[in-house]
């Protein structure tokens, strides 16, 4: 009897989920990468996946208008050696539902139900668009003072001016804070205290991979709050980090990508040991218990 396990793929908008899915769909269909998972029981509608894969094969970025507002994708994959099956659910490809979770403190019951039945989570972070905290430090004050027309102008703002300043909105929080909040919710509520198997995927790895050897190095430097949170909660989160470049590089330099005879070879996946492969199913396999 096959072991079937549900995995949830989540992330805020523009975190590389769609490109990952496109590359994943190609790999599991084409079987070009040895040791990768393959498709299992093709009995659904794959229009969306085929559309995204076509764009990926043409080295084209998929525009946001081509994505439906709350696209939900379901994909069944299997390891041909062990017969284990992973059912990958993407409840919201655009990622806007996670903004709602952070900002409005609610999620759909559908997402909640998916999470409750899941054994693991793939969480995407885009290092190229990652928003870090930015404070009004003395250096910043000096800089703005020097840019002002009247450098001797009093720093004080009038009460009227202060009233016109932007009020706080949850949207303005740094990304690491939002991700911690989502993970706290997932662990406390739908997972209800069960340990969450978490594959943290640093997408667009080609953009930052030359600065950081391993994905955990990036996390420690650029998202220290999240790094601390995961380190302190190993009882709640069994996690592994992966740097993934599903595109293989910038599409502006597509010539560098065209050299690959097998198009799957352009994919790059870096694990915590710094090992590099083209097997984009590695994070899924790890959650499934198939790899180290």
């Amino acid at each position, binding site marked *: 009897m096959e072991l079937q396990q549900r995995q949830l793929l989540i992330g805020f908008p523009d975190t590389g989920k769609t490109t990952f899915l496109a590359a994943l769909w190609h790999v599991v269909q084409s079987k070009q990468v040895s040791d990768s998972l393959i498709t299992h029981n093709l009995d659904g*509608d794959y*229009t969306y996946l085929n559309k995204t894969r076509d764009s990926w094969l043409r080295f084209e970025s998929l525009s946001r208008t081509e994505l*439906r*507002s*709350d696209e939900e994708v379901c994909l069944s994959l299997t390891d041909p050696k062990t017969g284990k099956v992973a059912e990958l659910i993407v409840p919201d490809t655009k990622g806007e539902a996670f903004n709602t*979770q952070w*900002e*409005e*403190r*609610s*999620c*759909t*019951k*559908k*997402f*909640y139900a998916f999470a409750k039945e899941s054994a693991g989570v793939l969480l995407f972070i885009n290092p190229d668009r990652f928003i870090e*905290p*930015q*404070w*009004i*430090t*003395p*250096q*910043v*004050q000096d800089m*703005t003072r020097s840019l002002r027309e009247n450098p001797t102008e009093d*720093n*004080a*703002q009038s009460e009227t001016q202060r009233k016109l*300043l*932007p*009020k*706080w909105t*949850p949207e*303005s*929080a*740094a990304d*690491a*804070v939002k991700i*911690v*909040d989502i993970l*706290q*919710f997932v662990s406390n*509520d739908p997972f209800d205290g069960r340990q969450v198997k978490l594959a943290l995927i640093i997408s667009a790895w080609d953009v930052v991979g030359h600065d950081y050897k391993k994905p955990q190095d990036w996390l420690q430097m650029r998202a*220290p*709050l999240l790094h*601390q*949170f995961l*380190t*302190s*909660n190993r009882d709640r989160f069994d996690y592994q980090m992966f740097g993934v470049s599903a595109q293989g590089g910038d599409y502006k330099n597509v010539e560098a990508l065209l050299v690959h005879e097998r198009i799957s070879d352009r994919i790059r996946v870096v694990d915590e040991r710094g090992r590099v492969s083209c097997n984009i199913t590695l994070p899924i396999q790890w959650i499934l218990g198939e790899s180290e």
Partner: protein
Amino acid sequence: MVEQTDSTSQICKREDCTLAKDGKCIEGVSVSDCINVQHSELSSGEIEQEPKPTQEPSTTARPIDHQLHPAEELNDEDANAITRDRLTKLIIVAGLPKAGKTTLLVSLYRSLLAGPFANYNFAGSLTLHGWELRGHLSSLVSDQVKPDTERTLGMSYLHLRLKSCNGDGSPQDMLFTDITGERFRDIRDSAQDCREMDLLKRADHFVLVLDGLSLCSQSERHITYHNAEMILNMCVDNYMLGGRSLVDILFTKYDLFKSKESDNEHARFLALIETELRKKYESKLGRLRFFKTAGRENPGENVPLAFGLDKVVPSWVEESPTLIFPSPIRFGHSNLISEFDKFLMKHNPEFVDED
């Protein structure tokens, strides 16, 4: 586009959808699942107009939603739920208005955003919105010319969970009070108000914040000092603080008054405050300590963010009156009849309860 049926109409919001012509969704989704399709019951012959867009309040929960916890701040009930559930340290941050209480707390949060602090890792918070809101006027998105902190209104709790970087031990939950300075002004003025603040008796740590910059001003320093002392005095005299209370006095805004340290007069005044407060209160409290702290950085004066808190936070995490002063076993008076019992009554009356 409208398709009329006997009892229902199906309208697709997409203009290019062929639903009306052939009953099929252009995106290949079943009509019942497509989010662009609107279903409505109409009487025969009636055509439904496209509803006018209405402004939905962003905080209105739809019936299909699952609610997450609010995350802004905790009230008494929320705080009690946490303390019932797990061992939690309660830190009461006291002081008059504009002393720098909230700025100091936010500096702790800001430090954790950048990495471990005082050898502790951030392990979670149930009030992330609350921390972010209070730090807003110090962030670039606020468009402030210089950093500031919103005035606190009312009373609430902020939550943090910290874990030692050494890996030993479980994470420790901490509740910090964020109380308006006006409340402490009331406590200073009224014994009744002081006694009504039951929370004071439950505090693991009582932190009294004095505006260090005001203490530099010849015209302001005496009123700043003595008003703060009055708060302490009221709490002690009304038994809200006592022999098991762990009290820290923080002189805030060190980033602004460090430059005056070379001024002997200022240094002497701070020393005078410490001497006088120790003389009056040290024997009445479990512990009394003094620290200089800064809620903002000043690189020019070599004052980092949260200066001074690294010396005091570890004890907030690790220590409590229960650990430092274990409660003695107490005996009812009427039970003491032997010579040994009489010895106890005479020499250790604190262990004896009147029946």
